[in-house]
């Protein structure tokens, strides 16, 4: 089991007495290699869940285990390191570094930790997303779909145990969205990565092995 969530709560304090409860007593178990889609209305807490999984935010209570390790128990430094090694994140807005080329963007997470073969591996990742020709291009010279493919390459280059994607096709047109999601699922399949995908797109959700609906803070 790669991911195990038990009794997860997340609320945002509003005033001294009031708080917004976004996730309530959430439970989830994901096996290695599974692809899970999380759907739900806007504001239901999908992104909040992802940010907890990514270790970018901390839960209010409950347990969250990734690869058998309790995330909430880790120090900030430990967590950062854990994230750098195990978690790949894909955002709706791509978030490439504007002043780095496609290749540099992809190699960034490796280079940050001094991997010797970072460029080599980045090229491979670019090849996997079919953008080996564009390695010298800057983000502003890439289309939305291409940018997202670079972002995917950047996420998988570290060979993460789990890939978190928040609306990866949300900023793309239909055709491009399909292309990108094809690519994503191909990659997941060939590498055996675990994927947790947040989307509004039912078609995309149905391509996953499991679909979960987030509503009123829990999975229905």
């Amino acid at each position, binding site marked *: 089991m790669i991911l195990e969530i038990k009794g997860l709560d997340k609320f945002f304090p509003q005033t001294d007495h009031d708080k917004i409860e976004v996730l309530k007593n959430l439970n989830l178990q994901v096996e290695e290699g599974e692809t899970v889609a999380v759907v739900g209305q806007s504001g239901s807490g999908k992104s909040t869940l992802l940010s907890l999984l990514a270790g970018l935010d901390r839960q209010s209570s409950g347990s969250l285990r990734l690869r058998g390790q309790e995330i909430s128990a880790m120090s900030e430094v430990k967590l950062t*390191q854990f994230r750098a090694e195990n978690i790949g994140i894909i955002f709706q807005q791509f978030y490439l570094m504007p*002043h780095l080329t496609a290749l540099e963007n992809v190699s960034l997470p490796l280079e940050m930790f001094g991997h010797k073969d970072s460029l080599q591996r980045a090229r491979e990742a670019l090849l996997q997303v079919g953008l080996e020709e564009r390695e010298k291009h800057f983000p502003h010279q890439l289309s939305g779909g291409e940018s997202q493919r670079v972002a995917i390459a950047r996420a998988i280059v570290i060979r993460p145990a789990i890939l978190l994607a928040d609306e990866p096709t949300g900023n793309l047109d239909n055709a491009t969205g399909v292309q990108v999601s094809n690519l994503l699922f191909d990659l997941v399949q060939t590498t055996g990565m675990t994927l947790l995908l947040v989307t509004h797109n039912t078609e995309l959700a149905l391509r996953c092995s499991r679909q979960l609906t987030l509503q009123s803070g829990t999975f229905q």
Partner: protein
Amino acid sequence: MKNPPAFFWLKLAFRELLNNRRFSLFFLFNLALGLAGFIALDSFKESLDNHLGQNSKAILGADIALTSYLPFEEKTLDALEARFPQNTLSTRKTSLFTMVATEDQTRLVQITGIEKEFPFYGKMVLKNNGVVESKNVEQSLALSGEAWVYPELLFMLGLKLGGSLKIGEKKFRIADTVLDDPSSSFSSFGLAPRVYLAYSQMQETALLSKKSRISYQRLYRLPDGTDLSGLVVKLQNKINSFEGSDSKIRILTHKRAGNNLGRLLGYLNDYLGLVAMIAVFLAGIGAAYLFRNYLVHRFREISILMSLGATRQQTYRMVLWQLGLLGTGAALIAIIISLAILPLLPLLLKQFLPNGFETQLSLGSLLFALVLGGVGSLVFCLPVLSRIRTVQPLQLFHKNIGQQDATPVLWRQALSYLPLLILSWSLSVWQSHSLIVGSAFVGMLLASILFLGSIAWLVLFLAGKLSQTSGSTMKRLAFRNLQRNRTGAISCFLALALGTLLINLIPQIYQGLQEEVSRPDDFRIPSLFLFDIQPEQMEPLQKTLSAEKVNLNYLSPIVRARLEKVNGNKFDANSKEVSLTREQERQQNFRRHNLNLSYRTQLSDSEQIVEGRPMTTNFDLDSGKPAEISLEVRYAERMGFKLGDLLTFNVQEVLVEAIVINLRRVQWNSFQPNFFILFQPGVLEDAPGTFVGSIGGLVASRRMNVQNLIVSDYPNVSVIDVTRMVGRVLKISDQMVLALRMMAYLSILAGLVVVFSIARHEVEGRLWELNLLKVLGARFSDIQKMIQIEFAVLGIFAGLFGVAVSLIMSYGISWWFFENLWKWTWQTSLGSIIGVTSLSVGVAWLATQRTLRSSPLNLLRS
């Protein structure tokens, strides 16, 4: 997990800077300008300092001197000299005033005995033998019982070179005349002409045994790098422990030997230091402001890096690299600029700089600039930098990155300003050479910032209120923008207001100094000064002179007196304070008994009452009230006399009580007989006295004629030719005015550059929003109007309050540094307000113009 390669973050930092070229260039330019200004000013100041040091050393002829009215006791001197560093050179000097006589004439002269090594500094120039070799001064004088005299003495006594002069019991041959004597400073021009003798021959004049007041001096040349003020404290402590007359030994340092001119050049020095400080502050504010904008835009990238596994520390490190790169880069550019420009300065200013003035780029100030560039930019940006703490990569899952302002922890925020405070404080203490003055300056700056901050808050609060009331949409939108984007608006306001403050400060201070330094209006340059005119000679002398079509100006009576009591207490002339600060140093020097009094009611053009009322025209003996006197304000300050103080004078053994009615300022370079103490008429008329006066506007040949005429008809009247000295002083004062003015203009220019870059960046930050408005279909003119209202509000208020605070602060600074020389000129103030407002509106207009013309594609792209 491995560590990244050593230069990974440096590389990344560099890439980011390259990518944000506009920011980087502006930052570099801004900081380099400030630092170059600093280097140039500091080097110039140091050169000036050196030059002044040389000058004041030349006036004393040494670094430090001990003086006493009794011969030094061996044992006393040994005890004191033990405190000097090794390799200190010393020479003896004795001087006294005495009458010298020829067959038919007698004159008061100052006899000065010197020995080898005199002077340690400066060059004495003789008419026949040129520059005096200090090595064998004494031998040349002593060999044949020779004397060197001031040329005017020859006139007065009708002597010639090679003639003989009886001084005391001995006859001396007049071997040469003294053309240039650095130790005859401006301040001593009222004294009798000098005669130099060999020290060893002073005894033979038999004058030393008499009761006459003799000044015994030991002059010392200290090894380079000696801590002068430390030495003074040590010596003074020792002297304080002595008994009797030994405890009255006085210490003279070359710094205190200075005179009015030294004081003014000291002003110039302080002023330059202030301008240098302000250049650094302006640059710092500009840099911090630019950096703040830059950093806010980097928040997203920082978030991305963190989501990819970078720690917060690492992102800090990257930003620190950037600051370090920029700061050092700016310093290097500044150094290159100053290396290129400074050698040109003396060429450009050749006409205006004193003779022998050398501008050197001091290695010290270069190194300092380098450190200041790196450390300073870090320190200035630290408060902004601490905002990285608020970056939450979690926002990547939401849209508006960097918009949200996590409430900063107050103490942490305050702490991040601490290094800045410490840096500013040490910088200003260092520049002003005074703990008090430096602290006061920083204190005032801090208070101004707090005050301006609260004003900003208030203005924005009002803007918020205004946005709710009716008005055009754009007007309301403008006010709402100001209020909503509060931190941005406050920092923009603060930066603009501080910019205005600093811009205005220098010209404002300049106004006061300029008044003091420049030539007095309507003033007759004196050529000859006449002393010792007897009352009965007045009428015939004036007749003689008017026959020559020459006027005797500024005729003033002089009555010698001693100050006995102050407010009924015996006046203590020899205070034992150990000098610590400049302020105290000045005081010490002046506690003396013997005074020259004068009387008149009318103030001259160069005098001005600064406190109190004019004296009444006539003293009423029967009223039983004390006589009214007016004190020169600086003299009163030094002596600690106030309005209403009762002073008791001994005027030729008659006690006269007088009350201080007013304090007056005398323009130093008016070249009129000036007196510290002026009586009202009707008190001193009967006391025996003499008159002084001046004659102006004579060409060289006429000067000679008139001098001869006076000397032959009125042998007791001393005539001194002051043309050369006056010319020199005027030239220097003109140079100073020029230097002051140039600096004022330069600081305005530098300030405007900063204001410009602030305004430009503020608009730039708004472009996205403007684009959006445009896309939404707002009319160009409306958008323009909105932006202009915003920037006009910011500009006007920032200008207004910046100027207001600068007035207060300049007043404070003038009070601290420049003895209260302060003058308000509304033109400067108004100019600043209009300048800053129109600059910010103008810049906003230009920038929006460009955006509105460009396609909204940029918006969709970003």
